[in-house]
């Protein structure tokens, strides 16, 4: 739209299109944003996704139930454990398999450790987007220690393929709980240090306060979940609303903030780190003995039927809709992923923002592109 430039009537100004991504350091993967700009202000934003589409749902239809597990690792490589988890939970629900209590605890320990690893990765990259380089080093330094714990358990640091239908693939190493508690004792005080780096920093404050406001109403309409929804004033957590595994036996709080801005989303995740540590300590105390796996045949055959299960991943509400036709392969396996909804909400959020605000907003939602594109 062309219009007159207020300061000089001889000049006209018009909107222009700006392409951000797909290769852009602040998009955390390959996200492309087509921005319509009026000067420095964003008028419209159209996210373009699909650059990382690996047809995971189609691949799943071509594999046996067990063979799908390593594919789910690739859904969201920052939190493979919860992607594994939601899939095996769907299979177990359909096949009516009961998981031994020790395996349930191990799964919760792994989910919460993965939440810490994912939030630490987020903390580092988020701070980087708003111009602070130091937190990146802090976040990654401590994430390494969590990855060491994973490595000692299942041999992998990123794509774990650890959960199995009926339990987990191997037992925890003998000294796992001691090492985990030693890590927690050493690391928990450092959360305060992370916050000190950002909380009182005026530059950080100006970049994040009252930026990217998302109302609870819009958040629901867009299907936003997890920490992002809790930052908009809704105390919603799958672990609390529809407790799965051993979460009913564990004590933890669901942090909520009402501001709905970038700063609130940051604060929620910092608080969640503490809650995860709290859950892990309880798990270490309560961890029962016994088998870690209810052995299943290599080719699990599920009865005809369908199910939908969901759980709380570090990014939000991840779900798996599984349809079986009584064979050894899924007939349809749909993943409902939180980042898919979180990217769609950008079109609404970045209106009237500046381009640097987009970086902050994009980072604050903790989107992971492979999970969106699947």
């Amino acid at each position, binding site marked *: 739209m062309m219009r007159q430039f207020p300061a000089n009537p001889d000049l006209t100004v018009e909107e222009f299109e700006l392409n951000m991504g797909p290769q852009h350091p602040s998009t955390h993967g390959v996200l492309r944003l087509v921005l319509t700009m009026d000067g420095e202000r964003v008028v419209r934003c159209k996210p373009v996704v699909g650059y990382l589409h690996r047809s995971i*749902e189609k691949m799943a239809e071509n594999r046996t139930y067990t063979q799908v597990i390593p594919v789910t690792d690739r859904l969201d490589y920052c939190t493979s454990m919860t992607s594994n988890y939601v899939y095996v939970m769907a299979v177990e629900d359909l096949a009516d398999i009961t998981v031994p209590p020790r395996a349930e605890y191990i799964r919760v320990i792994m989910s919460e450790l993965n939440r810490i690893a994912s939030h630490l990765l987020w903390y580092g990259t988020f701070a980087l987007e708003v111009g602070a380089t130091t937190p990146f080093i802090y976040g990654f330094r401590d994430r390494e220690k969590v990855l060491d714990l994973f490595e000692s358990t299942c041999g992998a640091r990123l794509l774990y393929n650890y959960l199995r239908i009926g339990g987990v693939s191997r037992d925890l190493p003998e000294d796992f709980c001691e090492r985990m508690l030693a890590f927690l004792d050493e690391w928990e005080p450092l959360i305060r240090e992370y916050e000190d780096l950002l909380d009182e920093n005026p530059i950080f404050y100006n970049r994040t306060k009252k930026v990217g406001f998302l109302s609870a109403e819009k958040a629901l309409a*867009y299907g936003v979940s997890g920490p992002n929804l809790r930052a908009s004033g809704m105390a919603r957590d799958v672990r609390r609303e529809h407790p799965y595994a051993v979460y009913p036996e564990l004590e933890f709080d669901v942090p909520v903030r009402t501001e709905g801005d970038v700063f609130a989303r940051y604060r929620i995740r910092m608080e969640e780190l503490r809650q995860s540590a709290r859950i892990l300590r309880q798990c270490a105390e309560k961890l029962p003995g016994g088998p870690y796996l209810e052995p299943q045949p290599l080719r699990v055959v599920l009865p005809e039927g*369908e199910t*939908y299960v969901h759980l709380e991943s570090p990014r939000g509400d991840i779900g798996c809709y599984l349809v079986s036709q009584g064979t050894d392969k899924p007939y*349809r396996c749909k993943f*409902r992923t939180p980042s898919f*909804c979180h990217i769609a909400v950008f079109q609404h959020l970045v209106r009237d923002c500046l381009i640097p605000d987009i970086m902050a907003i994009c980072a604050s939602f903790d989107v992971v592109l492979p999970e969106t594109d699947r």
Partner: protein
Amino acid sequence: MSPDEFLPILQARFPQVEFRLDPLNPQALIMSASGVPEVFGWLRDAPEAAMQYLEFSTAVDRPPDCLCVVYSLYSYTHRHRLALKVDLPRHAPTVPTLSHLWENADWNEREIYDLFGVFFSGHEDLRRLMMPEDWEGHPLRKDYSHPNLTPRPD
């Protein structure tokens, strides 16, 4: 409320729409396409249903005749879930859009259009979402073929 509690309420409220319980899925109801989007509008706004949240929508291809669109709704107020399934003819699957009810439906429907070829009437921006714009065919259909797509050996 569970699907069997929803069933009589919906049948009384929308006599022109067919509803029945789904034998395969205890969380779901099967309905005829003529009730979209009125039934969904009611489910979202009626206080006893209060489905503020469209968790996801997707499709399941059931050759030779049927393509089934699945909507999963969730209410944070009542903490209940209801899946609604609409069976469409596979050769020309068309269903009205829900994007005016939930913003979330916009992308979900684009994805279903892209991967299954379901046409959502009234959708303002029905383009492919995952696949390139010039891609041919709809990959998640059961009869889709591509040179790179071969069955895994046993």
